């Protein structure tokens, strides 16, 4: 999921040159001097860690949902808030805040992929994250905690975003625990030791409403929230990734990614049982192979994959709902809902970057 760091930086880079565009996706490997670095063995503490960590360079609240209309029509939505510190040290207040925020939202169905982007700076209230009550927002896009007091603030959320041609308003209720990736949330991203803090809430039940040009659609489904923060999560030779979050029909879930570099890809992931117990996957546990590609925005992107995880008896085919789920943000990337067939059936989300 560190993949998204690069998206953040790359997109901000072209939006505002906040990061060096020339560095592209490899920009994430930038020197993190002055910023906080993830420490192995550091325990995450909630609800504090649901909030922002301004001493780290990058962070996000990243939610994807696989939804269905009453007639079975599939939909996918994305809601993402990125935080990027422009300078280490005191974040400052007002307009001089060094915290930059970016939102991405998308709605995908079988006929179209629609996306939108927002950028704001911190310090004036236009975008930010609070923990009590929990809220993450940029402009009118909002992820709001609605859990009763005493429960984990992320266990119930309302979620809303809109663009010029779509909108959604959803309620989410978690039916399982938070899941910590890697070693208790310390997630390694490269052989050379780059890492991030990374946890998820993959057990949301969703109900709500989509706004489409043809009218409103009531939907239900499942959602997955990723929380991750770091300062230098990628190694210098890593330039793109393929990342999967899958809901299987038996209640189990899988997070898997590969970071493509100059040598062999670095693969990792987490097997999540239906009860929420998590098993980190070692680099050699996963087999990933593209099956077919789609021509999108002048590039060839693998939109059908074979994934095998023999240790858990998984051998599946992953197919994009739409091959053109292209986030046409300033540095574009592919992010869209997928269907899963094979030993395990289900739905999920796929994100791919670094395809030129």
């Amino acid at each position: 999921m560190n993949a998204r760091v690069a998206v953040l930086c790359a997109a901000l880079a072209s939006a505002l040159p906040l990061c060096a565009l020339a560095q592209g996706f490899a920009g994430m490997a930038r020197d993190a001097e002055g910023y906080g670095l993830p420490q192995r063995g550091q325990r995450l503490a909630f609800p504090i860690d649901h909030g922002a960590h301004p001493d780290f360079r990058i962070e996000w609240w990243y939610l994807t949902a696989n939804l269905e209309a009453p007639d079975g029509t599939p939909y996918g939505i994305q809601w993402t808030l990125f935080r990027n510190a422009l300078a280490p040290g005191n974040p400052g207040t007002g307009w001089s805040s060094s915290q930059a925020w970016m939102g991405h939202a998308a709605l995908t169905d079988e006929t179209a992929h629609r996306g939108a982007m927002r950028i704001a700076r911190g310090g004036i209230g236009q975008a930010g994250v609070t923990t009590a009550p929990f809220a993450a927002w940029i402009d009118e896009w909002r992820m709001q905690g609605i859990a009763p007091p005493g429960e984990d603030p992320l266990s119930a959320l309302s979620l809303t975003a809109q663009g010029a041609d779509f909108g959604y308003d959803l309620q989410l209720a978690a039916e399982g625990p938070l899941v910590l990736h890697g070693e208790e949330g310390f997630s390694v991203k490269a052989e050379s030791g780059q890492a991030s803090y990374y946890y998820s809430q993959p057990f949301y039940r969703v109900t709500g409403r989509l706004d489409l040009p043809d009218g409103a659609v009531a939907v239900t489904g499942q959602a997955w929230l990723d929380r991750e923060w770091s300062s230098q999560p990628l190694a210098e030779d890593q330039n793109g990734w393929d990342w999967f979050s899958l809901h299987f029909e038996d209640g189990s879930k899988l997070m898997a990614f590969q970071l493509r570099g100059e040598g062999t890809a670095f693969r990792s992931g987490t097997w999540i049982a239906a009860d929420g117990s998590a098993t980190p996957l070692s680099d050699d546990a996963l087999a990933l192979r593209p099956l077919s590609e789609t021509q999108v925005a002048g590039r060839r992107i693998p939109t059908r994959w074979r994934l095998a995880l023999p240790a858990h008896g998984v051998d599946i085919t992953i197919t994009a709902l739409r091959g053109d789920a292209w986030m046409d943000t300033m540095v574009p990337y592919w992010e869209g809902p997928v269907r899963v067939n094979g030993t395990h059936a289900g739905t999920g989300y796929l994100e791919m970057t670094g395809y030129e």
Partner: protein
Amino acid sequence: MRRVALSALLAHWRRHPLQLATLLLGLALATALWSGVQAINAEARASYARAAGVLGQDRLESLVPARGLPHLDQDIFVSLRRAGWQVSPLLEGQWSRAGISVQIVGLDPFTAPRSALPGMILDETRITDFLAPPGLAYGAPETVAALTGVVGLPPLAAAEGMAPGLLFTDIGIAQSLLRAEGRLSRLLILPDQPRSRPELAAIAPGLERRAPIEQADSAQLTGSFHLNLTAFGLLSFAVGLFIVHSAIGLAFEQRRPMFRTLRALGLPLRDLVVVLAGEVVLLALVAGLVGIALGYLIAAALLPDVAATLRGLYGATVSGSLSLRPEWWLGGLGMALAGAAIAAGQSLWRLWRLPLLAPAQPTAWARASTRALARQGIAAGGLALVAVLAAVHGQGIAGGFILLGALLISAALALPGILALMLAGGARLARGALAQWFWADTRQQLPGLSLALMALLLALSANIGVGTMVASFRLTFTDWLDQRLPSELYVTARDQEEARRLRDWLAPRIDALLPIWKVEGTILGGPVEIYGVADHRTYPDNWPLILGEADTWQVLARGQGMIVNEQLWRRADLALGDTVPLPGGAVRALVGVYADYGNPKGQVILGLDDLTALYPDVDRRRYAIRTDPAAVPELKTALTEEFGLPSDSMIDQGRVKEISLMVFERTFLVTGALNVLTMAVAGFAMFTSLLTLSTMRLPQLAPVWALGLTRRRLARLELIRAMLLAGLTLLVAVPVGLILAWVLLAVINVAAFGWKLPMHLFPADWLWLGLLALAAAGLAAAWPAWRLARLAPSDLLKVFADER
């Protein structure tokens, strides 16, 4: 055959290099003045377009405070964004310190329309510098150069393509520069809005939508100024054409024998005309290119002053550096070609109709007949009628310029007739043979010189007219400044709270504290500033009212009326007693009109209590202080020590006047420069005409010489003749110039600026101008006269031997 013909024709220029130089120089000068003026206009227009396009404001609607308040709260921006309105904040204001002033535009690069941001702001290596204090300010290279070393501004960086005279900074930096923490000027509404958002009134009831800033804003205001310049350019061009016309005409006349020979040798008439036309085109192209180069130099030299003028008069910022734009240099070349065509047209036409074996003798070059004079007189009368009609029925600036054009051309056409009458009168008074010969010979020369004299007349009357206008304006303006600025010191507090403390502190220490509180808004469709005036004798004592009753100031104090400046009064065509709706819905009757020179905006003054009742949020930070002038320095020091008020927050009367006059002086520098150039062109026209005549006049002078008049004496008479004609022309020019001045003051000024000025006469200036005209004529005649004095007697004798 054509080749032979061409080389034969071109040989003429080899034998008469001076004539060639005259022709080229005349056309080049005419083109230079025209294209110079056009270059200035083009540069200014480009600057307006760039200024209007700052951050896409020429395309985007914006949200502004509804009640004409100068600022809106930054929280409103956040509320709107969080309600789904895609808006981007702007803070604009004038930053000034120690006499240096620059427009600051604070923007938020996160939300600003990307396409409208200068590329430099997105430079990734500097964006963090831009955002974080002390920030970074981008400006046009010339703006940055002018501000280098100024204390108090953020570090500066040059960015190409920016409008001059302004700096872009981050909005946070701008807030601290302009002392406007937490405040914004307005919000740009971005083109892409999300699917649904609440009504504006539900989120920010205090805001209203405003249409994109029209480029016309500056363009309209300054249109008259540019028309003025264009008129000047056209005038110079016309004067230049006189030169070209005489040079081409002379060349045609002198080559008549050659034409006859070429025709006799078998050159078809068509070929001859084609070759001659080709020659004219070639000359026009060469002269046109030289003229454009000269025009560039003139424009580059004048542009900084023009820029200063436009800034001073209209608040429009124009780049002080010139770029080579095709619209003016192509236009200049076109004018050169067109001018040469006009100048050569008559000669070519005559050639076309020339009988094959017509006498080859020059026709004493455009010999005039009484009939021609009468025809000119009728044309002059017709144009004079047009001028009168334009004066009576004409409207606006176009009417004014029709009046001006008709007046000047009419006067020019009438000039030869008037001069002929004067010379006839002189001849009647003449005693003695020599004197009679002198008058008669002067009359004989009149047709040959009439074009040059017309040029001189135009230049002289333009000089008198413009000079009178500027001097009248100056006199009125300085008087008015003295009246309008009675207060000894003007202070501006940094915020309302400081203003309150300032007021309490000052009250016991000074004679009177007069608030200068204002709001901005729209009245009768135009932007205005609305001020409040305290009930204090300063105003009735000092403020000159153009219209108003004795009790005007009491009516204001009772909150029962309003007064407006002359500009608004004329623009809205108001009369005393008219009721005028104010922003917010209140209505007040007009009880007076005051002069307000140099202000492009409409202005309204209410009673102070009335103002604060109607607009409780009025900006209350500015005050005028009445006190003993001697106490001012002490007071300034005390204010600095007591309140930490920076020196640029206080300005004394003397300094205000100084700045105002400086703006005024610069305003008319350009006019003065163009005036001098026009005079120079006219002088040159006279010189070429005299030179032309001098070579043809030998047959008329030789008999006089033979009768015993020395060459030296003859030369002296030539000089006197030129000066006499110049002097007589000046006599005609004075009334024409005064009418011109009246048109400028009472018609053009009102249409262009919105104010009318009383006309004052400055006879001393005319005397000076007369001397200048005589000197020009004397100079122009000097060389031909000197040549005559040195002429070999054999040349004069030859006249009798020649067959002619």
